[in-house]
């Protein structure tokens, strides 16, 4: 068999466990008692605003930060005390971090050289890695001659060529423009699936996390707010932070109202109530307790006014292709957003008073 035709068949992804990780800088706890378990071959995104601690977790796994408390395990082995170079972890940096004084092939061969692999073996592996990221024939190029997207592919090839059981990515697409970013999201996802690598991926872009990850850990203030599948995060956010951070959201003020065995939600500034179904944390609820109702704009339907149901004044209609964003002023003075199909928006004009409706089991209510 021609060695050049050989492929990087698989990476044996290993599980990763971060246990009780705490890291403080002075008085500020960047990471506060975080425990995170990632399955072998799983793609996990750490999602959060800047300063939420996601990069610190990544740097601790990589070995560039020492935890104050806590351990890191890869494949069941405690690597907390190992230096970065001995962890067998592949890392992709935000600005690629390619070596500008080496060619593409020399960059990809670097981790092999560090492992004393040379000659034909190394050349074949470099060729295979180049083929994997669809850059055949680019081995002799200088880094400065490549576009941003190509540089990121080289960085990926370099991080994967020695088949590490774990890949860490620190906002690897942050420097690319939107179209290229979306293309590379799919590309990285394709490679990860094909190779079976375990990936921990840091991003502040919720769209990227939702598209790529098997599970997302949403972070804020050094803590994991929720660790779940993208669908779960989007449909059933664990708290107000997650609800507000991931996706477009209406957060409507009001209070809880007991209705026999069931609960209803009364909108602030009116007597209008809506039914609530399938809610999680009803144990702590009391009648008349102040709360916020979360409903995604695409779940809100605009229709005729019905007695006792929420209604409002249409203040603005924003056309955006297949859908129309309808901004409705509620009696409380707050604004609610409905994203409706263009066809349904035909009968709605600015200045109308309209009724609002949504599925009772698709909304979330949080104590305010």
């Amino acid at each position, binding site marked *: 068999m021609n060695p050049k035709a050989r492929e990087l068949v698989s990476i044996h992804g290993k599980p990763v466990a971060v246990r009780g990780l705490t890291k403080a800088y002075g008085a500020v706890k960047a990471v506060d008692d975080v425990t995170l378990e990632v399955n072998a071959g799983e793609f996990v995104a750490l999602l959060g605003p800047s300063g939420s601690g996601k990069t610190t977790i990544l740097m601790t796994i*990589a*070995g*560039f930060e020492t935890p104050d408390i806590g351990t890191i395990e890869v494949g069941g082995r405690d690597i907390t005390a190992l*230096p*970065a*170079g*001995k*962890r*067998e*972890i*592949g*890392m992709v*940096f*935000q*600005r690629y*971090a*390619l*070596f*500008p*004084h080496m060619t593409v092939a020399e960059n990809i061969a*670097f*981790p092999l*050289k*560090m*492992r004393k692999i040379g000659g034909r073996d190394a050349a074949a592996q470099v060729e295979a890695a180049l083929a994997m990221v669809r850059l055949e024939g680019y081995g002799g190029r*200088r*880094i*400065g*001659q490549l576009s941003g997207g190509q540089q990121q592919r080289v960085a990926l090839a*370099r*991080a994967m060529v*020695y088949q590490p059981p774990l890949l*860490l990515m620190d906002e690897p697409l942050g420097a690319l423009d939107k179209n290229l970013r979306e293309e590379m999201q799919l590309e990285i996802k394709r490679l990860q699936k094909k190779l079976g690598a375990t990936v921990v991926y840091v991003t502040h872009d919720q769209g990227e996390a939702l598209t790529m990850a098997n599970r997302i850990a949403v972070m804020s203030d050094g803590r994991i707010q929720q660790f779940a599948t993208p669908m779960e995060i989007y449909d059933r956010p664990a708290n107000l932070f997650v609800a507000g951070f991931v996706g477009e959201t209406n957060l409507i003020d009001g209070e809880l109202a007991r209705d026999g065995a069931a609960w209803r939600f009364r909108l602030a500034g009116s007597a209008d109530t809506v039914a609530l179904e399938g809610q999680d944390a009803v144990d702590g609820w009391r009648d008349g307790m102040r709360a916020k109702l979360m409903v995604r704009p695409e779940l809100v339907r605009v229709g005729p006014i019905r007695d006792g149901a929420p209604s409002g004044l249409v203040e603005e209609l924003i056309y955006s292709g297949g859908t129309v964003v309808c901004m409705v002023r509620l009696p409380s003075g707050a604004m609610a957003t409905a994203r409706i199909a263009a066809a349904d928006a035909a009968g709605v004009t600015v200045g109308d008073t309209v009724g609002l409706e949504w599925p009772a089991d698709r909304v979330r209510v949080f104590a305010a």
Partner: protein
Amino acid sequence: MSGAASPIGRYWFGVSTQRYSRAMTLVLLTPLLVLLVVAFFWPILRFLSLSVLEPEPTLDNFRQLWAREFYTTIAIRTFRTALIVTAGTLLLAYPVAYLMSTLRGAWAGFVAAIVVLPLWISILVRTYVWTVFLGRNGIINSSAINLGLIDQPMTLLNTEFAVWLAMIQIQLPMMILPIYSSLRAIPPDLGMAAQSLGGSARDVFRHVTLPLSLPGVAAGCVLVFIISLGYFITPMLIGGPRSMMIATLITQQATKFLDWPLASALACVLMGVTLAMVIVFNRVLRLDRVMGAG
């Protein structure tokens, strides 16, 4: 220093992005060009032309240089001194530059001040300081005698070694600063990448830091080497007549023996060799290519 960040500062320090027309560029350059031609190029050309035109068109002056061992000895000593000083400066400067590149905050300012401050003191003063150290009754000799290490004072002054020492010390900033600036220009994530890919601290230095700092090393070496070739005051003051270098020889021929054609020939040789070295250095290191096209 705060002015450098303001718009006025930017104006004065010439970081303006404004472009001038061709005519304007010429008008702005003319005063300097006139000054350079009248006060620099013309006198230099006249002086250098003496070597082949006086007393009549001839190559005798160069033949004389070649024929007399005295001159070749001094020329060889000059290049040897420049090479040794360059190597010595590099050895001492690189660790300091490396340290500076890793420091942040107050310590960084402190070390930078230590490196730069001597530049504000006259070369004459810095040279004389070494006579205090190296003289017969200087600090080194008297301390060694007091400690009982030696009976008789050593001859330290008026040796080639003294010249090396002083020249290395005086030129350290010229080597430290370019190396420091190229070290600082290396993105820190390159080192992290090399580590995560399996490199030890030594690998990171050998394969990433060192090669990427070579442009600064080259700039520092060229600078120190060329300046050393023409060093005048320091070799004269603490090297003594036995350690004479070519610049002192040129002055001697011109002002003491009034042999201007011979001084001119010496100057021609010095300039020619310097230019050749710079060209060779640039070719060998391919400075433009070290950082790649990006």
